[in-house]
């Protein structure tokens, strides 16, 4: 391990400039992925850039348009926000599932997204809620739909010297609700073997007019499943539609065998989770 430095800049431009000065610099918020990787010998940064003292990186701003979530906001803070929980119960559920209470006190949704694990719990929830990534760099800010952010296991569109500053979620339309489910062997603490996020909008008659389905841990990145969405659109989200959506999700999944589960198992279970998450989202949407 080489001798490293620690800096806690108080502006975005300072942070960006620091990163530009040091090739082996790492931004961090909660550090719950970074420090584990350093301990495991996978990473050896020469500069730790702590983002938490930059205004706007930690915090929740909610207005008529929607949510602007500081990328470094600990998951626990999100989960304690009653209004955010009410508007996006599935997204908050997903954020709440990232690790233990202790990890929640540190780990951020931004960090979870930037770590870009195929199994990241927050990503499906962000995708189905049409989140947009606000990326800051030397040339200023740019926006990227979250669906395009992760490009492969551990890989994303951030260029050297760029950092994720915030996530924006548009306020949901009336009778819109989301849900997130994941499959883990224990009740807590495990990395998702399979994840499924769903957001549905129903009209006054209970017919689905908008459907977004994303599955996780079954491909190099989280996947939208247009066929599952098509199965739900125009339906009353009845048993038959749910079964078709489940099958579509199983078909779309491209999982691998690894120490946490086999491909065959994941393919099967992702369908079950999409069915269940869709049912929950529909029930929530009906009662809004």
């Amino acid at each position, binding site marked *: *391990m080489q*001798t*490293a*430095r*620690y800096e*806690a800049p108080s502006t975005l431009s300072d942070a960006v400039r620091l990163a530009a000065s040091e090739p082996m610099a790492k931004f961090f918020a*909660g*550090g*719950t992925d970074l*420090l*584990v990787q*350093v*301990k*495991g010998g996978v990473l050896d*940064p020469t500069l*730790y850039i*702590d983002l*938490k003292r930059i205004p706007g990186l930690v915090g929740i701003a909610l207005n008529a348009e929607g949510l602007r979530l500081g990328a470094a906001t*600990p998951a*626990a803070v999100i989960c304690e926000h009653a209004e955010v929980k009410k508007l996006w119960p599935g997204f908050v559920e997903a954020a709440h599932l990232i*690790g*233990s*209470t*202790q*990890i929640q*006190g*540190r780990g951020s949704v931004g960090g979870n997204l930037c770590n870009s694990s195929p199994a990241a719990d927050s990503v499906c929830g962000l995708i189905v809620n049409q989140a947009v990534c606000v990326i800051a760099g030397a040339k200023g800010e740019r926006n990227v739909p979250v669906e395009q952010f992760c490009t492969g296991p551990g890989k994303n569109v951030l260029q050297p010297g760029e950092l994720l500053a915030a996530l924006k979620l548009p306020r949901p339309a009336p009778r819109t609700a989301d849900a997130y489910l994941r499959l883990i062997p224990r*009740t*807590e*603490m495990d990395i998702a073997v399979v994840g499924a996020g769903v957001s549905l909008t129903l009209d006054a008659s209970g017919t689905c007019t908008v459907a977004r389905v994303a599955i996780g841990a079954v491909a190099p990145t989280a996947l939208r499943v247009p066929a599952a969405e098509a199965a739900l659109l125009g339906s009353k989200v009845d048993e038959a539609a749910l079964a078709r959506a489940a099958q579509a999700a199983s078909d779309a999944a491209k999982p691998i065998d690894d120490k946490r589960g086999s491909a065959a198992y994941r393919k099967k279970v992702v369908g079950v989770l999409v069915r269940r998450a869709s049912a929950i989202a529909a029930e929530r949407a009906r009662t809004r």
Partner: protein
Amino acid sequence: MSRLHVETTVNGEAAEFLCEAQENLLTALRDRLGLTGSKEGCGTGDCGACSVLLDGRLVPSCLVLAAEARDRQVTTIEGVAEGGKLHVLQQKFLEHAALQCGICTPGFIVAAKALLDRNPDPSEEEVRYWLAGNLCRCTGYDKIIRAVLDSAAELRKEIA
């Protein structure tokens, strides 16, 4: 090698130490400040034995850089008892035999305190899920959960 000088507050008292940039808070507490009550069970945030409060929030000190403690409030197991008086949680752990080897006990008490500070009337399920990040291999958790629920009841009586 150059070290960082960190000034912080630990258990209500001003404290300072020198540390390397990549050193974690757990190491600083144990090796620089002599506060060995927080334990390393895994070093990867999976066991809860290193639990401390950082500005009142429950965190795994093995995944906090020591430098981050600058200008913050850190509460460790050593700060749970007030003066010479055990906290209700500590007393209930003793009464309920909620510890055997005791290595996980500091982490559990800090974590349970964080729960009861926020939620004075948790259900058994809420207690279990809140404490899911604290591993115990000796007790099977039964007596720990009972001690926490009993502490909550006791604290509610004190306030009432």
